[in-house]
């Protein structure tokens, strides 16, 4: 490298680098929106075609676990936002614990999700593996559960990546917290909040249809 500065050669300064990195994360989130957007579109098309089946399918989901998970995820997002807000070399200890707490809540989410999956397996609601459902709504219910499993599995995968990011940042903060990790933390937080927002949509689409009627 021609000059031994703190930033890579393509950047003029540290703020320049940080703004660039943040824009990168926003563009990445744009691409993610379209990934989930395609899936949600397909869901909506079929929900429109099979309103009864989707309502019946939705009533077979565990709304208690779903609601609990929503609370868990929102709390975890709050911890991350808090960490971003107070981040400085002086507060590295608190930031580390906040990130560990957020990651642990993420793991709680995954554990509850696994519990939910196993319950659905026991009830023979897993399409392609053991799906059994009698009656005229069977097709709609099966389509509902196909989307349920695909959407929540992709979301869980994003959660696992996010948990990995949070733990990595917690380790970095513990070892050597400097100003320059603020952007990394900020970008990871953006990603975590995005995964959170996706869940809000999935929660409404998966657990709430058909609850007012039976």
């Amino acid at each position, binding site marked *: 490298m*021609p000059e031994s500065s703190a930033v*890579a*050669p*393509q*950047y003029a300064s540290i703020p*320049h680098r940080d*703004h*660039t990195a943040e*824009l*990168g994360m926003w*563009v*990445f989130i*744009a*691409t*993610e929106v*379209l*990934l*989930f*957007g*395609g*899936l949600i*579109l*397909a869901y909506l*098309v*079929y929900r429109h*075609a*099979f309103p009864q*089946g989707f309502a019946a399918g939705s009533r077979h989901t565990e709304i208690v676990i779903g609601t609990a998970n929503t609370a868990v995820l929102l709390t975890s997002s709050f911890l991350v936002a808090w960490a971003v807000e107070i981040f400085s070399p002086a507060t590295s200890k608190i930031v580390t614990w906040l990130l560990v707490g957020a990651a642990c809540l993420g793991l709680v989410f995954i554990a509850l999700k696994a519990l939910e999956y196993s319950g659905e397996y026991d009830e023979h609601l897993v*399409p*392609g*593996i053991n*799906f059994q459902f009698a009656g005229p709504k069977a*097709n*709609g219910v*099966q*389509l509902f559960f*196909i989307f349920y499993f*695909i959407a929540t599995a*992709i979301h869980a995968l994003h959660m696992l990546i996010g948990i990995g990011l949070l733990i990595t940042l917690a380790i970095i903060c513990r070892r050597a917290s400097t100003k320059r990790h603020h952007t990394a933390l900020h970008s990871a937080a953006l990603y975590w909040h995005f995964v959170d927002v996706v869940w809000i949509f999935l929660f409404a689409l998966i657990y709430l249809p058909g609850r007012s009627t039976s």
Partner: protein
Amino acid sequence: MSEKNYLTTDFTLRSWFLTTDHKRIAILYFASLIFFFFVGGAAATAIRIELATPQADLVSSDVYNRLFTMHGIIMVWFFLIPSIPNTLGNFIVPLMIGARDLAFPRLNLMSWYVFMLGGCVTLFAILAGGIDTGWTFYTPFSTLYSNSYVIVAAAGVFIAGFSSILTGLNFIVTIHRLRAPGLTWYRLPLFLWSLYATSVILVLATPVLAITLLLMATERFFGVGIFDPRIGGDPLLFQHLFWFYSHPAVYIMILPGMGVINELVSCFSRKEVFGYKFVAWCSLAIAAVGFLVWGHHMFVSGQSLVASLVFSFMSFIVAVPSAIKVFNWTATLHKGSIHFDAPMLYALAFIGLFTIGGLTGLFLACLAYDVHATDTYFVVAHFHYIMVGGMVTAYFGGLHYWWPKITGRLYSEYWARTAAVLIFFGFNLTFFPQIILGAEGMPRRYHVYPPEFQVWNVLSSGGAAILAVAYLMPLFYLGYSAFFGKRAPANPWDAPGLEWQTSSPPPEFNFETQPVVTREPYQYNERFEAEPQNA
């Protein structure tokens, strides 16, 4: 030439395969794409040999299905989509904006590895026995009936999609954040506007393909009925999702080519591009409207007439910005001081071929005519005029134009011009007969056909032979020049772009001092303060 350039900083294999230098990554892509181009080309060769006679004499119908699928998948995802963005774009974007690298150099390297992983998975699917669904993976054939490696091939395309997204993301951020001081948006060379528009499509459309292929593979693997009408699924939904990506993808495959043509036409007419702002915004207009026309692939699928009418109308609209570009290039030529160097021959070939491709596209946008032309050679000819006549020709043009910058060597002008002319004639001889075949009703994707079509098919196969030779020629004369060619000066074309203000080949970090931009692009009229030319 004592100072080290990017090619001579280090010679180890490690320095190539772990490089974060955008210029070296461009070379990695370039080498990979040559390989994929000839794999796809080999399939095309077999197809054209088979079609030289009306009977099946080379391959069975099953093998033929696998051949055209392989041709399509390799050429679309492993050649055309990455072609100009990942080779010329990777090399030139930072140089053009006066930056020392792309915004995320490690991500750039990662995108190459992801691309190669996707390519290897797809090649494995081909070597293991191939795929017979066509490049479109239409359900329910792909999910229920096909006895071929559909999931593996879809996985390869899926993986390569991440590479597209990462490249698009890198370009968007780079063009936003790393422009040299004084380089405002309206001072950007038009190549960058095109690549920016392309990147927006890459970032916004590719994830939809990813989720579509994932749904298709899930249905096939688990035997569930996402698109299976017997249990309530809708095969048309697959087509909608697929074309929501794949029609914008068509613009991924032409916008970068249009961008290159701006640079070439302007340089070899020694004139500013006519109507700069129109051309710039037309790139974005094509990207935006291109998202709203996918239904014209489905006019005979049974979608509602209202939908078809809207998609037909939008398809006419999207032709407007493309036409504006063609008119502006011809207006740029008007009263220009035209030099028929090899890159200019490619650019002129592009304008002609793209115009034919565009006009046949308007035929297909017409509902009534499309019913007649759907799934005939008319469609095949149309998109080959755009993608091969347009994009590949622009790719060759850009490659010749920037070759002295990339390698620091000059190629043989005689051979380059010969190849350009041969490509133009070979291409037209290959594909113009297909327009006629299609209009007369010959369907695509059949390996046998009625004897009355043979004349045109023989002409087409003959043209393909010429085209094959013409495409092989640059491999030799450009390859030769890379090692034994005359040394190129920093600015062999006497062009004002920033990429010409640094040495050829450029040093590792592109510029010795940060360039500052004080003028609009394409100022060929004024004498710009050229750097002292290398003697």
